[in-house]
């Protein structure tokens, strides 16, 4: 009799376990999936930015998700860049034919401050001096070549030897955050990739010749100033 009661009790406990454990597991899973859903997909971010039309960066409300959660969902970034001057961090993931990037503040690698889509433009190689490589950045407006900038990049921002066999007129694609500091030559603080894209066409070369002329004049003026300063 006692055995039967024990048996019944055991069975009840087993049923309870069989019912309760899956319920707990289901609750945990749903909680985890709820937490995961706080991280937007790359597509969502891309569409949100495109819907803004004119800007290619959007602010991210703090505290919605952490950078760590973003990496769990998107994987580790393909490129990491830090702005030398303000130590702002950019983490970029390849997406479509460019990048989606997250902006983190200098000493806070937990919160994502903003998201952006990289801008792709073309550049014509102009020349180099001891520490910099110079390009003519072509404007975004397809039928206009007038809005060009001469930009310079420190040599140490390229892999060793990467710029050794490059010639005047070589064309490059640049993916960057779209910000150009307006000095002469201009400065692009953050870029995600610079890749060869063939040769500049006749029209582009005509303008590149003029830009190179101006750059050579600037080299000469700079040298004069340096000599005068002793």
């Amino acid at each position, binding site marked *: 009799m006692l055995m039967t009661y024990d048996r019944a009790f055991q069975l009840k406990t087993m049923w309870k376990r069989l019912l309760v454990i899956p319920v707990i597991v289901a609750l945990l899973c749903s909680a985890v999936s709820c937490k995961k859903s706080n991280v937007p997909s790359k597509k969502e971010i891309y569409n949100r930015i495109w819907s803004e039309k004119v800007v290619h960066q959007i602010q991210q409300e703090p505290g919605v998700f952490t950078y760590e959660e973003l990496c769990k969902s998107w994987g580790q970034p393909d490129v990491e860049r830090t702005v030398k001057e303000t130590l702002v961090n950019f983490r970029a993931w390849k997406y479509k034919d460019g990048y989606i990037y997250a902006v983190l503040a200098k000493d806070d690698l937990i919160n994502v401050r903003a998201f952006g889509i990289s801008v792709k433009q073309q550049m014509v190689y102009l020349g180099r001096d001891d520490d910099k490589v110079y390009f003519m950045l072509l404007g975004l407006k397809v039928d206009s070549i007038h809005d060009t*900038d001469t930009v310079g990049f420190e040599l140490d921002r390229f892999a060793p030897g990467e710029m050794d066999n490059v010639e005047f007129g070589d064309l490059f694609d640049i993916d960057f955050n779209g910000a150009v500091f307006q000095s002469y030559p201009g*400065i692009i603080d953050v870029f995600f990739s610079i890749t060869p894209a063939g040769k500049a066409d006749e029209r582009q070369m005509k303008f590149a010749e003029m830009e190179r002329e101006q750059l050579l004049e600037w080299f000469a003026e700079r040298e004069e100033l340096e000599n005068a300063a002793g």
Partner: protein
Amino acid sequence: MTSNKSIQSKTLWRRFLVVPMIVAVLCSGAACKKSKAPSKKEIYNKIKSESVTNQIYQTSSAFTYKELCDSWGKPDVERTAETTKASYRAWKYNDGYIYAILDSEAENSVYAFGVSVKHQMTYVSRDDDTFYFQLLYPGETSGNCEVAFGAERFASGEMDGVKEGELFDIDYDGMVLQSYPAIIDVFFSVTSSDEALRKAAESTRDRL
């Protein structure tokens, strides 16, 4: 009684000595605390000597934005970046501005300083809600790129009566975002060049 009198006089002397000493120590402590915020001149020189893009990083723990205001006074211009919503506070200095960028999550913390860049631009046209200018490349008289400003970024009536080709001075952080038309995320002032020339003449006269 004599002994008591002696103790009282000793206590009095101690008070006379100790209280001013404590006050002096507290004052010097306060002065040390105040001196944590650098002067505008220090920041300006540091930026000009160290930075090519006119910006430098500031260790957030060095001093607070409030301490900076105690030392520099209230900023002349407050701006929020159109895209990243970063907060900019700018103080007039020389013929431009020195600006501080505040942490968007801890507004009392300054994370970078910058010196404004002054460029010229010519007014091109406007539509219902946007003004278009041609930003002139540094040292060039020809156009560099077309830039657009939402009408809400100017005071009401500020751009009324402006004619095509009119020249303006813009003080901004020097960054132009590449789109067509281009975007200047943060500017501190846009003034007609005539006005800028008049102000420059006034300040020269004041110095004389």
